[in-house]
C-alpha cells in the first residue's frame, strides 16, 4: 500500500471501511481490521512508537503520571522564577521585596467568563493565597470558595504538562508546524474551520477572535458553557429587545423577591450582591430603621433561600405560575398565574407596591426566558429599572444563545462540514448535552485541537492537546459582572509550560507571534491611546481595575407578558439539574479542597447525591426511623434514578425544605479523566475508595431540551448501607433541647426586647461561679509592652453559609485533605466549619448557618487536661497550640465542648509532591501525624502585625489584623479585633444586646461570640 511516511488518515479510514472514524488504541483499531495485520502493525508502528497507545487509552494514565514525576521536580524550580515581563506589585515596588515578606498583586479570576478581582499573595515569587480585591466591584475584598481554591488548582500536579499529538508527547513548535496544513484543510475562506470557546468576556481575546473571523469569513465561532445562562440572556432580550446586561443594586432594595434565584450564592456578582444585600440586614443597638426583607420561592434549598424571611419550596415548573401571579397582582396582563398561596402572594405584592423603586425581583438562571421577561416587566412596573436594576451593555465579547450555537456546531460536524475544530478551554465531550452525542460528532472532524488545563475527556479525542495556562500564570483581561475590565496579570511563569488562549489565537491568526503580555498591552494601547498610557496601565495593574464600569443605558423593559406556554404533561418525579455547589460543572473535580468541602445544605463531601424532601423519601419507601439510624452511621440508600430510558445509581439524601416530588442532582462529578483526586487514584492512607471515581456523572441525563431538568423521572431504592461522607447529620435545633446554640428573633421581637438572647439561652448560663479569679488581660503597666485581648464576633444574621471562609482557612493554614474514607470516619481537618441547623417543620424549616472556629476560651477546658503543656494561653489570651510538643493524647479534643480541635490520625499532610510544597504558606507549620491542631485566629497574621506595630512604637490599629476567614467573608459576618481597645469594631459588637457566646454556662469565657440571627418576616404572614 502507500509507503509514504505519513499516516494518511483519510485514506486509512477509507481502507478500514469507515468502521471506526476515530481510534483510540491499537486494539480498537485491530478489532476493526480491514487490512492484514502486517500492514497494520507497520503503519501503527510508524504512528505510535512505544507507550503512546497506553497513554491514549488512559488506562495507564498513572504510569504517565510517574513519567511526569520528573517534570514535577522542575515545577518546584519554576516556582522560583518571576515572569519576564514587568508586573506591578499591589502594595510595594518589586525591588522593595524583602525575603520572607509576602507581596500582593492585583489580578482577576474568571468563572463562567466573569471576572472576580483578587489580590494574590506571593511569597518569594510563589503565589500562596488568594484574597479579594477591595477595589474590584464584584469582590469588594471578598472571595468565594472557588476563588480561594484556585491557588491549589495552579499547583495541581495532575494538570496537563506537555503538548500532545495523538496522545504522544510532542512540542509547541510541532503544533505550530502542524496547524498550517489544518488551516489549509479548511477551505480558503475557512468555511471548514470552527472555533469552540467558553463564555468570553476578555476584550483582547474577543478582538483576536474577530480578527481571525475577518481572515476567514467562512469560519464560525461557537460558545458553550455547561453552567448555562441562555435563559437569562434570552429573557433580557425579550424584555429589552436586545442583548443587555442587568446589574442589581441590593443596597437600595427594601424588599427582594427571588424566584428560584441564588443571587447570594452563585452567578456573576454574587459576592457583591451578598455584600450589598447584607448591608441592609445588620441590626445594631438602638436601630429602628427596618431591615430589608427577602421572599424566596425556590425549587431547592439555596444559600439565598436559607436567609430568606419567607420561603416557599415549590416544583421548578411551578415558579412561572408564581411569577405570573405576582405580575397579575401588580396589574400586569399576566395569565396563568398560580392559585396557591394566594394570601401569601397578595401580601408580597403589597409589600412590593409599598416599596416602588426600592425593591428587586430576580429570577434564577434555570428558569425559562419567559420568567425572566416577566421579572423584568415587574421591575419595570415597580420603577426598579434604572434605580435598583441597572441595564448595561452585555459583558460577553459576543453574547449568543450558546445551546443553539453548540447545536449548530454538532450538526455541522455530523454533516462533515467541519474540517478543523479548535477548542479553547472547556470540556464539551464531558459536559455537552447528552442528546448532542458530541464525541461522535467531534470524531468526524479530521483536525481537532484542544487547549485545556487538564488532559481531560475532550483532550483524549483531540489530535492535538495543548496545556493551558492557569490565570495566575499568564496575561489576559476580563470583565466583571458590571462590565468593569480587569487586567489579569500573572504571578509566576507557567509551571507546566502551558499556553494561554491568546498565544493559540496568535498562531491561528499567524504573523508575528506576540507574547500574551504584548497582545493584551497593545490591545489596550490602541483602545486607550494617550500620552499617559504608561501611567494609566500601571494604575490598572496596581488597582486591578481598568477604568470604570460602562455607564448604564437608561432603557425601559417591555411590560408585555409572554403568553403561558402550553402546560407540558408532567408525570412522575420532576428532576432538577444544578451545577455542583463545590466542584461547579466538574472543572474543579480534581481540587481536593473543594472535593472535601461540605456542601452548604447537605454537608456531603466527595460526591453528589439525589436530594429529596422528607415526604418524597417516605413515598419511595424510606422509613424515617431507619433513615435516622442510617444517618447516625453516616450511610444511606443507593437509588436508581431513571430518566428518558437512562438510569443512574446514586446515593439519596433527604433535605428538609426541599420541595416534594422533586429530585435534585448536581452535575460535574464522575470525571474519568479528571485527575488523581477526581479519579479516586489519589493516595490517601488506608483508602478503600482508591480507583473509585468521585461521584456519579449526571451529564448523560442532561438533554438539550431539558438542560435544567424536567418532569418524568423515576426513582427506586436499590440497597441501604451506602457509606456517604457527610460531616453533619440533620439536627433540628429544638430536638436536643434548648442549648442556646442558635438564637434568633424577628425584627419586631428584637425591637420589643433587644436583649432577647439573654432569655433564649440555657438558664444555667446566668449562674456561673468559679473557684478562681481568672487571668487579667488588661494593660496594667502603662509603660509595659502593649497588651491585647484578641476576640472575634460572628454575625449569624448575615451568614449565608457560602463556605468561602472554610477554604480561605484551609489555604491560609496549610490544612490537609483526608479523603472520603477519613471524612466518613469523622476525621475531616477543617479548622473552621459551618454548622447548619434547622428550626421548625422539616417540610419548610428555617435554616441557620453558624461558622464555628476555635472559641479561644479564656478558661479553655482543653488546656488543664494536656499532660505536656502542648496547649496553653499566651499573654493576648490566645489559646495556643504547640505542635512539636504534642504527644497526641486527644484529651484536649475530648474536653473541648465545641469540638473544634482536629487530630492528625494519620500522616495526612502531603510531604512528597514538590508542587504542593511550593503552594504552602511558609508562615504556618505543616503538621505531621499524631499531633492535634486547631484554629489559631491566624496567629501568623497577628504576629506580623504586632511586629510591624512595635517597630513604629504604636498599638496595632483596629482592622490592622484581618483573619483569613474574615477576609474572605462577602457579608462581613466575621469581625476580628482587640477587646482592650473599647473603640474597636469587635468591642462595639460585643456590647451589642444580641451578642451571645456558645455554651456560656460552662464558664469557658469564649473570645469568639455570636450575634443573634435577626430576620424580618412580614407581620401580615403568619409563620406557617
Amino acid at each position, binding site marked *: 500500500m502507500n509507503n509514504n511516511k505519513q499516516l494518511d488518515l483519510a485514506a486509512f479510514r477509507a481502507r478500514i471501511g469507515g468502521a471506526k472514524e476515530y481510534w483510540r488504541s491499537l486494539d480498537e483499531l485491530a478489532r476493526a481490521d480491514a487490512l492484514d495485520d502486517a500492514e497494520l502493525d507497520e503503519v501503527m508502528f510508524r504512528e505510535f512508537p512505544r507507550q503512546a497507545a497506553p497513554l491514549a487509552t488512559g488506562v495507564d494514565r498513572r504510569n504517565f503520571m510517574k513519567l511526569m514525576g520528573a517534570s514535577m521536580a522542575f515545577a518546584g524550580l519554576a516556582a522560583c522564577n518571576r515572569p519576564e515581563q514587568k508586573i506591578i506589585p499591589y502594595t510595594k515596588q518589586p525591588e522593595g521585596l524583602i525575603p520572607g515578606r509576602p507581596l500582593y498583586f492585583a489580578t482577576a479570576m474568571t468563572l463562567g467568563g466573569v471576572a472576580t478581582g483578587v489580590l494574590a499573595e506571593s511569597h518569594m515569587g510563589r503565589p500562596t493565597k488568594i484574597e479579594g480585591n477591595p477595589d474590584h466591584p464584584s469582590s469588594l475584598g471578598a472571595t468565594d470558595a472557588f476563588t480561594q481554591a484556585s491557588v491549589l488548582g495552579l499547583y495541581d500536579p495532575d494538570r496537563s504538562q506537555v503538548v500532545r499529538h495523538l496522545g504522544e508527547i510532542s512540542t509547541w513548535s510541532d503544533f505550530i508546524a502542524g496547524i498550517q496544513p489544518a488551516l489549509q484543510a479548511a477551505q480558503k475562506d475557512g468555511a471548514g474551520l470552527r472555533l469552540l470557546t467558553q463564555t468570553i468576556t476578555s476584550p483582547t481575546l474577543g478582538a483576536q477572535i474577530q480578527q481571525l473571523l475577518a481572515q476567514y469569513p467562512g469560519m464560525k465561532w461557537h460558545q458553550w458553557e455547561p453552567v448555562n445562562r441562555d435563559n437569562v440572556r434570552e429573557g433580557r432580550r425579550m424584555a429589552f429587545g436586545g442583548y443587555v446586561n442587568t446589574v442589581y443594586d441590593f443596597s437600595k432594595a427594601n424588599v427582594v423577591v427571588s424566584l428560584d434565584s441564588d443571587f447570594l450564592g452563585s452567578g456573576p456578582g454574587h459576592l457583591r450582591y451578598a455584600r450589598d444585600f447584607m448591608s441592609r440586614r445588620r441590626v445594631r443597638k438602638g436601630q429602628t430603621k427596618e431591615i430589608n426583607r427577602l421572599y424566596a420561592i425556590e425549587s431547592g434549598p439555596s444559600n439565598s433561600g436559607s436567609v430568606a424571611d419567607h420561603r416557599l419550596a415549590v416544583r421548578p415548573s411551578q415558579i412561572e405560575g408564581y411569577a405570573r401571579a405576582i405580575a397579575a397582582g401588580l396589574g400586569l396582563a399576566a395569565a396563568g398565574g398560580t392559585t396557591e398561596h394566594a394570601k401569601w402572594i397578595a401580601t408580597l405584592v403589597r409589600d412590593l407596591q409599598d416599596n416602588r423603586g426600592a425593591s428587586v425581583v430576580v429570577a434564577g438562571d434555570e428558569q425559562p426566558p419567559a420568567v425572566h421577561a416577566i421579572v423584568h416587566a415587574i421591575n419595570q412596573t415597580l420603577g426598579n429599572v434604572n434605580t435598583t436594576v441597572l441595564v448595561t451593555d452585555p459583558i460577553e465579547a459576543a453574547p449568543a444563545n450558546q445551546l443553539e450555537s453548540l447545536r449548530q456546531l454538532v450538526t455541522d460536524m455530523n454533516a462533515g462540514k467541519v474540517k478543523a475544530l479548535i477548542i479553547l478551554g472547556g470540556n464539551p465531550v464531558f459536559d455537552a448535552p447528552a442528546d448532542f452525542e458530541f464525541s461522535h460528532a467531534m470524531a468526524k472532524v479530521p483536525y481537532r485541537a484542544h487547549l485545556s488545563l487538564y488532559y481531560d475527556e475532550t483532550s483524549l479525542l483531540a489530535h492535538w492537546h495543548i496545556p493551558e495556562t492557569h490565570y495566575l500564570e499568564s496575561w489576559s483581561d476580563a470583565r466583571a459582572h458590571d462590565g468593569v475590565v480587569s487586567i489579569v496579570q500573572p504571578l509566576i511563569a507557567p509551571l507546566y509550560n502551558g499556553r494561554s488562549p491568546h498565544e493559540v489565537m496568535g498562531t491561528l491568526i499567524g504573523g508575528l507571534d506576540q507574547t500574551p503580555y504584548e497582545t493584551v498591552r497593545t490591545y489596550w494601547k490602541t483602545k486607550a491611546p494617550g500620552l499617559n498610557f504608561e501611567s494609566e496601565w500601571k494604575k490598572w495593574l496596581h488597582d486591578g481595575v481598568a477604568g470604570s464600569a460602562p455607564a448604564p443605558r437608561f432603557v425601559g423593559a417591555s411590560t408585555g407578558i409572554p403568553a403561558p406556554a402550553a402546560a407540558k404533561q408532567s408525570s412522575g418525579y420532576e428532576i432538577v439539574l444544578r451545577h455542583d455547589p463545590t466542584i461547579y460543572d466538574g472543572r474543579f473535580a480534581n481540587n481536593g479542597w473543594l472535593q472535601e468541602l461540605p456542601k452548604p445544605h447537605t454537608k456531603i463531601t466527595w460526591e453528589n447525591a439525589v436530594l429529596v424532601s422528607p415526604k418524597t423519601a417516605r413515598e419511595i419507601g424510606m422509613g424515617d426511623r431507619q433513615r435516622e*439510624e442510617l444517618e*447516625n*452511621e*453516616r450511610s444511606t440508600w443507593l437509588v436508581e434514578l431513571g430518566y428518558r430510558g437512562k438510569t443512574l445509581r446514586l446515593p439519596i439524601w433527604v433535605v428538609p425544605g426541599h420541595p416534594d416530588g422533586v429530585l435534585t442532582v448536581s452535575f460535574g462529578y464522575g470525571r474519568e479523566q479528571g485527575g488523581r483526586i477526581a479519579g479516586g487514584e489519589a493516595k490517601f*492512607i*488506608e483508602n478503600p475508595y482508591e480507583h473509585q471515581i468521585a461521584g456519579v456523572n449526571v451529564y448523560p441525563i442532561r438533554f438539550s431540551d431539558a438542560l435544567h431538568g424536567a418532569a418524568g423521572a423515576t426513582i427506586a431504592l436499590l440497597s441501604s448501607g451506602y457509606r456517604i461522607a457527610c460531616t*453533619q*447529620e440533620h*439536627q433540628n*435545633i429544638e*430536638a*436536643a*433541647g*434548648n*442549648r442556646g*446554640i442558635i438564637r434568633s428573633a424577628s425584627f419586631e421581637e428584637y425591637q420589643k426586647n433587644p436583649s432577647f438572647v439573654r432569655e433564649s439561652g*440555657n438558664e*444555667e448560663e446566668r449562674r456561673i461561679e468559679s473557684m478562681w479569679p481568672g487571668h487579667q488581660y488588661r494593660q496594667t503597666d502603662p509603660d509595659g509592652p502593649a497588651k491585647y485581648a484578641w476576640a472575634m464576633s460572628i454575625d449569624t444574621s448575615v451568614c449565608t453559609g457560602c463556605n468561602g471562609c472554610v477554604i480561605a482557612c484551609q489555604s491560609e493554614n496549610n490544612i490537609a485533605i483526608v479523603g472520603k474514607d*477519613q471524612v466518613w*470516619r*469523622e*476525621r*475531616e481537618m477543617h479548622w473552621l*466549619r459551618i*454548622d447548619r*441547623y434547622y428550626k421548625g417543620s422539616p417540610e419548610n424549616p428555617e435554616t441557620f448557618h*453558624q461558622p*464555628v472556629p476555635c472559641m479561644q476560651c479564656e478558661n479553655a*477546658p482543653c488546656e*488543664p*487536661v*494536656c*499532660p*505536656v*503543656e502542648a496547649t496553653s494561653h499566651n499573654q493576648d489570651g490566645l489559646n495556643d497550640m504547640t505542635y512539636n*510538643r*504534642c*504527644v*497526641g*493524647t*486527644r*484529651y484536649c*479534643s*475530648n*474536653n473541648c*465542648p*465545641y*469540638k473544634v480541635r*482536629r*487530630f*492528625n*490520625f*494519620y*500522616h495526612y499532610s502531603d510531604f512528597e509532591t514538590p508542587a504542593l510544597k511550593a503552594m504552602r504558606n511558609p508562615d504556618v507549620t505543616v503538621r505531621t*501525624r*499524631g*499531633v492535634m491542631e486547631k484554629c489559631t485566629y491566624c496567629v501568623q497574621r497577628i504576629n506580623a502585625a504586632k511586629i510591624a506595630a512595635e517597630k513604629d512604637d504604636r498599638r496595632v490599629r483596629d482592622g490592622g489584623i484581618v483573619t483569613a476567614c474574615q477576609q474572605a467573608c462577602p457579608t462581613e459576618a466575621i469581625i476580628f479585633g482587640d477587646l482592650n481597645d473599647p473603640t474597636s469594631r469587635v468591642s462595639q459588637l460585643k456590647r451589642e444586646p444580641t451578642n451571645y457566646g*456558645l*455554651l456560656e454556662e*460552662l464558664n469557658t469565657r469564649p473570645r469568639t461570640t455570636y450575634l443573634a440571627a435577626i430576620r424580618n418576616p412580614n407581620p401580615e404572614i403568619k409563620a406557617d
Partner: protein
Amino acid sequence: MAPNEQTPLHEVRPVTQRIPERFVPVPTIEPGHSFASITDHISSIVLRRKTPAGWVIGFAITFVLVMVLTATIAKLVFVGVGVFGINHPVGWGFDIINFVWWIGIGHAGTLISAILLLLRQEWRTSINRFAEAMTLFAVASAGLYPLLHTGRPWYAYWLFPYPNTMGLWPQFRSPLMWDVFAVSTYATVSLLFWYVGLIPDLATLRDRAPSLLAKRIYGMLALGWRGSARHWYRYEHAYLLLAGLSTPLVLSVHTIVSFDFAVAVIPGWHSTFFPPYFVAGAVFAGFAMVLTLAIPTRKFFRLEDFITMKHLENMGKVMLATGLIVAYSYVMEAFFAWYSGNLYEWYMMTNRWQGPYKHMYAALIVCNGLAPQLMWIRRIRTSAVGLFITAMFVNVGMWLERFVIIPTSLHRDFLPSSWGMYHGTMYDWSMYIGSIGLFLCLLFLFVRFLPLISIFEMRTLLPEAHAEAHEEH
C-alpha cells in the same frame, strides 16, 4: 511443757465428729497437712522436672495472642492511631476502655494481700500470692494503653518530669499526669510487696531445687534468706507497713483514674461521685477476675486443699457486696442527671437508654446489675461452676461499663453539629485480645516458675505453728 511431752504430728490433726455437714465451718486449709506436706506439694508444682502437657498447650495459645499484640503494635506505630476507631467527637475508645478495665482488675490483688491482711482475714493466705501476681500482670497490660494510645508514642517519655534543654515540665494539673504517677507508683509498690512476700519461699525453692542452675537462680533471688528470728521480726513489720501503705494507694489509683473523666466537662464524665463508684467497680471486677482464674487453676493443680470452697464463697460475697455498690452507682448516676436539672446531663442519660448504644447499656445492667444478685443464693455461691459463670458476666459487664462511660458520653456531647458514632476496628479488637494474651501468658510463666501459693504463710495456718512463750522467769 517439757520437750519429752511433745505429741507426734499425726495426733495433732483435728478429729471431725458426726455432726450435720452445714454446721461444720469450712476450713481455710483441709485437714491432714503438715509443714512438710504443704512445702512439698506447693514447691513440687514449680520444681517438678516434667512440664504438664496442659501447661504447654495453654502457654502456646497465649503466646500466639502475644504475637497478635506485637503485630498490632507494629502496625500502630508505623501507620498511626488512625487504625483505631477513634474520631473527632470520640477521641478515646478501646484504648482507654481497656486501660481502665485492666487497672480495675488489678485492684483485687492488692486488696486481698493488703486490706485483708490488715483485717486479719486468714482465708486470704492461700490466694494472695496468686492475686498479687494477677495485679502485676493486669497493670502490665493496662500500662500498654496509655503509652500506645498517643499519636506519637515515641515521645511518651515527655510525660515524665526529666531535665531537658527546653526547661519544660509536664503539666501537673492534668489527670493524665496524675495517672502517670499513680500507675507507676502502683506498679512499683505492688512489685515490691509481691517480691518481699516471695523471699522466704524463694529460700525454700533454693533449698529444694534439684538442679544446680535452679538452686543458683532461686538462691540469688532469695537474697540469702535463712529464716533468722530477727529477720522474721523485721520482715513481718515491713510487710505490715507495706500493707498499710498499699491500702490508701490502691484506693487512690482508681480514684485518680476516675479523675480522667470526672475532671473533664463532658456530660457523663463530669461527676463528683466517680471515685467511690470506680473503686467499688474495680474491686468488683478484680474479684471476678480472681475467681475466673482461681477456679480453673485450683482444679488443674489439685489445690482444693488450699483454695477451699470457703475462699471461693468469700470472694463471691465480696463480689455481691461491691456489685451492690456499683448497681447503686448506676441508679445515682441517673438520679443526679435528672435531679441536677442540667439539660446536657439529662440528655446524656436518656441517650444511654434510648440512643444508638442502648443495647450496650441494657447488657451492662444485665451483667453488672442482675448477674451478681445470684450470689444471694447459697447453692450458687458455693458451686465452682456457678461462681465461674457469674464472674464471667461481671468481667464482660465491667468492660461494658467503661464503654458506656467513655464513647457513649463523648459521641453526643454539647453541640449537635459534631455528634458522631464510634465503633472499634479490627485493630482495636486485636489489641484487646492481645493484651489478654499477654496477661495470661505472664500468669502461665508465673505458675510454672514461682510458688503460686505462699508456702510460709500456709505453714502458719497449721495448729502446730502456734507456740507459746513461757512467762514464768
